[in-house]
């Protein structure tokens, strides 16, 4: 049990402008599940990608079962029985499960023995109750199923050491529980697991030992039984973390947004909003709770002018803004934190300054006589960076190099700086670490206290319960019920989210 199977000594890795891993020591014992805990950008994925041969360390040594190894590429990693399940799945979605498993196999000739491979896939699939058809195309599978294909890939290659990089980030709570069962079964079979996460509850549930990383350095390695959640949070963030937020009493003002019997269609041509109606008032956070795919995204797009309403009205302070252009709507005071910060919110290859002025580039003081004043633009960006404490490698580095939390801060800073009347935030903290999540939520509360109307759309019920003043539960494009926070009960909301209850009673 105490045999050390992986040992990394003094691993250092530089990226342009960042020291991602700074002399990291890490060890994995046979048969244990060792969690790497750290905020986004702490260097967890970098360290694991080094073990998997994707990145090469600038300094440091790796030992597998006591033998020094040089892992040049993922193939070497496999030869050393290391299998990694990446944060972003390494699957080719136009290929079948079988073809993905066969990808890169060196043991065979030119032809693929589909029968043999499919038999092995089915054996693995049966053993762990995966229920995966080897001939399905990847794009036909749910995210949870895709993750199981990733696990099959590593087991097929006889991996003894499994690395899972934030596997639960894409799963529902139920799917996470299923995954943990699988991991426990793998442990019983003598495999060793490195598990990456920044969710404290699950870390406390599943780990044997925990190594905490912060800013590329190891803070410490602890046994789970010796620590508490609060202690881990402090190690990870470097200070005390609040698990609940302080909220000032509600000071509701006049009606800012009125949505009246709004209807819209999704990309597949189905009606995604069905005569949805609700109002948001100044000084309150109106939370929309619901299971993914019940019209949340369409709702935000329709209000902000990114999607056509086929019926109904959106009214902002008595002005009809239905189907106005996104720019007109924004200029009237509706600002937007979209669900996908790198696809809609920011332009990945532009730098911080350019992204910071996306809303204000065409007016004074940034544009004068039709020309952009780059100095003014940079000053503007720097003021946002200072105010929101955004960490950027360099101000002229593409914004895609920022960590998720810092991207989101930049996005929020840019939108709030417009002094909106209504802020629509969709999944504002998805994929963010504890520190950034807390920061974003506090900012939303602060703006609420200043009288802003906030429409918060989130699939994280805890988040909705933590910050909202009123909660509307959305189900199949309709609001089931609006509940004041004082009357909100988790169970009741959960049932409404599943569609139990007749609409609007």
């Amino acid at each position, binding site marked *: 049990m105490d045999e050390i199977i992986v040992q990394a000594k003094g691993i250092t890795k530089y*990226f342009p402008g960042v020291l991602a891993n700074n002399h990291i020591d890490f060890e994995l014992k046979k048969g244990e599940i060792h969690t790497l805990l750290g905020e986004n950008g702490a260097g967890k994925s970098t360290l694991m990608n080094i073990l998997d041969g994707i990145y090469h360390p600038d300094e440091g040594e790796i030992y597998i079962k006591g033998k020094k190894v040089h892992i040049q590429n993922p193939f070497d990693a496999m030869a050393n029985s290391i299998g990694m399940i990446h944060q972003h799945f390494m*699957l080719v979605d136009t290929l079948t499960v079988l073809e993905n498993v066969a990808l890169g196999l060196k043991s*065979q000739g030119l032809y693929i023995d589909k029968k043999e491979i499919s038999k092995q896939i089915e054996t693995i699939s049966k053993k762990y109750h995966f229920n995966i058809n080897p001939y399905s195309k990847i794009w036909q599978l749910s995210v949870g199923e895709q993750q199981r294909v990733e696990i099959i890939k590593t087991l097929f290659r006889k991996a003894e050491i499994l690395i899972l990089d934030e596997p639960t980030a894409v799963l529902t709570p139920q799917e996470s529980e299923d995954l943990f069962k699988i991991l426990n079964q793998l442990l019983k079979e003598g495999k060793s697991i490195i598990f990456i996460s920044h969710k404290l509850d699950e870390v406390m549930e599943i780990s044997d030992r925990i190594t905490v990383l912060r800013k590329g350095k190891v803070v410490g390695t602890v046994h789970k039984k010796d620590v508490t959640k609060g202690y881990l949070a402090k190690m990870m963030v470097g200070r005390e973390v609040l698990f609940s937020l302080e909220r000032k009493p509600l000071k509701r003002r006049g009606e800012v947004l009125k949505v009246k019997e709004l209807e819209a269609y999704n990309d597949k041509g189905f009606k995604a909003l069905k005569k949805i109606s609700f109002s948001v008032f100044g000084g309150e956070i109106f939370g929309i709770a619901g299971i993914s795919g019940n019209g949340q995204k369409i709702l935000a797009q329709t209000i902000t002018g990114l999607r056509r309403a086929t019926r109904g009205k959106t009214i902002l302070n008595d002005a009809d803004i239905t189907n106005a252009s996104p720019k007109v709507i924004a200029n009237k005071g509706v600002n937007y934190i979209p669900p996908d910060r790198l696809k809609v919110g920011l332009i990945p290859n532009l730098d911080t300054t350019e992204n910071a002025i996306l809303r204000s580039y065409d007016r004074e003081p940034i544009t004068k006589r039709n020309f952009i004043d780059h100095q003014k633009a940079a000053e503007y960006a720097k003021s946002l960076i200072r105010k929101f404490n955004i960490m950027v490698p360099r101000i002229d580095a593409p914004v*895609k190099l920022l960590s998720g939390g810092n991207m989101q801060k930049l996005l929020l800073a840019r939108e709030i700086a417009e002094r909106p009347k209504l802020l629509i935030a969709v999944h504002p903290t998805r994929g963010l670490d504890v520190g950034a999540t807390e920061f974003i939520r506090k900012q939303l509360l602060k703006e609420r206290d200043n009288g802003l109307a906030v429409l918060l759309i989130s699939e994280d019920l805890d988040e909705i319960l933590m910050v909202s003043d009123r909660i509307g539960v959305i189900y199949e494009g309709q609001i089931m019920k609006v509940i004041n926070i004082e009357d909100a009960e988790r169970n009741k909301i959960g049932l409404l989210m599943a569609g139990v209850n007749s609409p609007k009673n």
Partner: protein
Amino acid sequence: MNVTATSILITLLATTVRSGTILLFPTIGEIFAERAGILNLGIEGMIIIGAFFGFVVSYTTQNPYLGFVVGMLAGGIASLIHAFISITLRGNQVVSGLALTIFGLGITSFYGQKWINNKLPESIHAVAIPGLSKIPFIGPVFFKQDYIVYFSYILVLVMWLILYKTKPGIHLRAAGQNARAADAMGVNVNATRYFWTFFGGLMAGAGGAYLTVAYATFWLEGITAGRGWIAVALVIFAMWNPVNALIGAYLFGGIDALQFQLQASGTTIPSSLLSMQPYLLTFIIIIIATLIVRARHLGAPKELGTPYAREEK
């Protein structure tokens, strides 16, 4: 149908197959390069380089088969310039491809001056396949051809098998669809892309050489007449599938053959209008193909034209 009409139709279709073969090789080659993630707009340049070397070697050695092989290799070597720029240097593939086309057209025009209007003493001849060539209608159209045409039939089949049934096929599809995933699975993405870009060059060279050693058997400046661009369009029309490429290539070959036949029969339609046809049809076919591709969600390989670097975010 009377006897002469049938025999004219057979001649027309047999010419169609040969004219289509000129397009078939480059289209197959580009399908594989694109499937691996490399967009090569240098096809026109590589075809004419193949055509030129094919002609010169056939002329000087009086061996058209040697000419064909050398023309093919010349196309392959030319493609390595593009491979180096787009894979190793991670340059812009559109620019590099266009440069290759201009280079090919320019260099063959310069060195080709003194070969203009020379005719090959010895060209590639048709060899009827015993048995098969006796099948009425089909026989004389498809099986009274030369060895290179027979080679192209086999090639289509083999390439289809490689693409869908073998490991190299999966590797190249993965390299063009999700290079990072392919890399993480131990596929050498850049080597894969080099190989298939080179293959694309060989095929473009083969198409060009076939044009001068079997189809036209003379040299003319700009003899390819934009066939490389038609091949680029055919790749989309074929939806990156080698068997569809055969259909598309023969379709265009048919128009080319028809136009020759019309000109030979002394039609009153101006020849410049006639020779415009393939390009008009290119437009129409691209529009139709794009609509089909969109309706069936069968896009180009996802990472087509995107260079891959492992440590890049």
